[in-house]
């Protein structure tokens, strides 16, 4: 049919028009590009931005395809073009995966340097925003980065693994900006530190707006995450008193029993609900229900029976509640609502939008009550 042929030709024309224009960019040959995988930013005494650019090349002839360039400038793009003065490759941002801000910038506020990342469509929204307590320059010059092509890729893998493992709260650029621009929920970013010439995540930074004001340890961040997000297969290790279980603990080891026991719960799933019970006095009630299975206990008891199992769940509840109260208190001390209590408050007050200043006045005085209920669903193949 005449018409069908015309439509077919139209599709062929369309496809070629989608493909042919890309050939016009023959100047961006991949062998001539320096592809940035990470930027590190510090600020010196004269308020000038000191950038560390980690890039790699796709040239098959070179063995060490990664290099680090230091340059200065007053803006993100100046740093990049100054870095380009020291490299024969055209530096492009398309595969930027990690941004690392040193303490000088992290304390003051990172937002001014993030504008171009949001504005420039070429840069991905899925890069990780991270900070460090040592200068970014030092972190990025760590020489041990496993089998990754360079330190930038390694940092990305490091954070990505921790996020997928549900160890930390994800701080992808999109999520960072979402929380930064949301009144009543502050972002959290991983703090990269250097241990034996190797970068690692040791803590998670609490941001007040865009500036770093405090840190949660990796143990604490579990409880923060419990309130913020849902676990799919989380892992929790707790230290419990042995005393309440006196009657149940099997006497395998004789009398040298310790007064602390450790348990590890994995496949942990949770459902947390923040309820604002009193708008005027700002009292919150948080219901946290957790279920999971026990994979390790340092003292053995018969979990097949109801009484010890219930007792164990009860003790876990108490412990988790104590930890949750501690993390909320810590956040209140630095006045950064990383849990999103402010969002709940704003949702309940109709008509007027909460401002950042208002919530900073209110947040330190909120009262939070926790109802934790744990359910041990399974406990392995021994009783």
């Amino acid at each position, binding site marked *: 049919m005449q018409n069908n042929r015309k439509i077919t030709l139209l599709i062929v024309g369309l496809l070629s028009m989608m493909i042919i224009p890309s050939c016009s960019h023959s100047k961006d040959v991949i062998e001539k590009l320096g592809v940035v995988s990470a930027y590190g930013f510090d600020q010196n005494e004269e308020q000038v931005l000191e950038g560390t650019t980690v890039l790699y090349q796709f040239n098959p002839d070179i063995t060490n395809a990664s290099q680090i360039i230091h340059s200065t400038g007053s803006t993100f793009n100046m740093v990049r073009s100054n870095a380009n003065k020291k490299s024969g490759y055209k530096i492009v941002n398309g595969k930027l995966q990690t941004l690392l801000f040193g303490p000088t910038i992290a304390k003051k506020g990172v937002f001014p340097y993030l504008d171009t990342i949001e504005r420039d469509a070429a840069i*991905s929204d899925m890069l990780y925003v991270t900070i460090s307590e040592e200068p970014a320059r030092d972190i990025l010059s760590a020489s041990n980065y496993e089998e990754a092509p360079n330190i930038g890729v390694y940092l990305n893998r490091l954070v990505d693994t921790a996020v997928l493992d549900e160890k930390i709260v994800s701080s992808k650029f999109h999520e960072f900006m979402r929380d930064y621009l*949301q009144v009543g929920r502050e972002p959290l970013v991983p703090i990269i530190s250097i241990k034996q010439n190797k970068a690692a995540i040791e803590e998670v930074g609490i941001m007040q707006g865009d500036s770093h004001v405090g840190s949660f340890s990796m143990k604490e961040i579990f409880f923060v995450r419990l309130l913020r997000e849902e676990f799919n297969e989380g892992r929790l290790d707790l230290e419990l008193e042995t005393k309440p279980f006196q009657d149940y603990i099997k006497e395998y080891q004789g009398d040298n029993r310790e007064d602390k026991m450790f348990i590890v719960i994995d496949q942990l799933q949770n459902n947390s609900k923040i309820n604002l019970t009193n708008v005027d006095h700002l009292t919150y009630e948080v219901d946290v229900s957790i279920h999971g299975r026990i994979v390790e206990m340092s003292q053995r008891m018969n979990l097949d029976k109801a009484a010890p199992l219930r007792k164990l769940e009860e003790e876990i509840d108490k412990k988790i509640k104590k930890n949750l109260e501690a993390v909320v208190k810590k956040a209140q001390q630095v006045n950064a609502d990383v849990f999103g209590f402010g969002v709940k408050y704003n949702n*309940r007050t109709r008509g007027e939008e909460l401002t950042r200043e208002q919530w900073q006045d209110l947040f330190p005085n909120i009262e939070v009550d926790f109802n934790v209920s744990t359910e041990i669903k399974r406990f392995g193949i021994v009783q």
Partner: protein
Amino acid sequence: MPENLNIPDHKKLKAIYLVIVLHTMQIGVGIAGHPRVVFLESGRDSFISILIAAIALHIVIACIVYVLRSFDGQDLHGILAQFFGKWFGKLITFLFIIYFFLLFISVLVNYIEFVHAFIFPDMSSWFISLCLLSLVLYAVLGGVRVAVGACIVFFFGSVWMFGLLIEPITYIQYDNYLPMFEASPRELMSGALKTSYTIIGFELLWFLYPYLKDKNKVHRYSQLAMSLTILSVLFITFVSIGFYSNNQLEDKIWPLLSTIKIISFPMFERFDIVTVALWMIIILPNLILFCWMTSMSAKRVFGGKENYYMITVCSLAFIAHYFFDSRYNVNFFTNYVGQAGVIFGFVVPILLVPFAMYYRRKGAKQHAKQS
């Protein structure tokens, strides 16, 4: 009856094509920026604004079909000539021609903006418009059946893109939808007005009607197409509001395209680039059918060959897009075209209803006299 259209039966189309053709005609460049534009007006209650626009849309479609049914196989120009006489009818159709031409340009320049912002900042506008216009010209010269056929093929070529929103949906924060019902009626109405640019395009029905075979099913299928569009718009707005926090959504010029920015596959690091390239599939039916509508109406007003008008439209558009080479101009222009859309798309059909009622009654009387 002046200037009756006699379309031979073998050139006619089935009415069921309306579902896809009207839908693809409505979805175009507007939808990429729509969530923000409505959000700026009515905030989290954008849904209500869209639903208000939806009700208006369904009523307008009912009006159009009512007016079209009062006549036997006339298009907009034929009807206007019937009501207002030859010359005044021509004048109104001429306004419609200008309106369609402006819509044609607005789709073109907005798409060029996408390409500049997302893929090739240094590609010259004339090259992009040359590519697009040559395709449009090729399709439209093939006649209305090729234009409609292309719409249907391109619809199935682009509808899978809704699947791209699955990953953004996993990032949705349900707190972003609360508190609801905060916007004032005034804000809701202006949100509904802003929705109009996204959902115009249904004017095609005025011109496609004479080409349809089973005319008794036209109403059913065109209403179905409208529901399809509204559902898509609601879905995209729902995802955008949940995906971005409120202040963030106000900053994004094209929330839909920015949402797709987070998608990455092992073989496609950045899927938004593919999406913007494929957006061509979404806008081509718009361009093809706007071009057809413009040149069709021009032929009816001025006489002459349709093909010449098609070439004229494309060449004029090629020249005209030079005046819209900055974001400010494009936004300014699009804004005004959207406002014109409210008048030409929504108000005119409702104004024509009383005339059609009068005409029907007169026709019935004459019929009674004759018998």
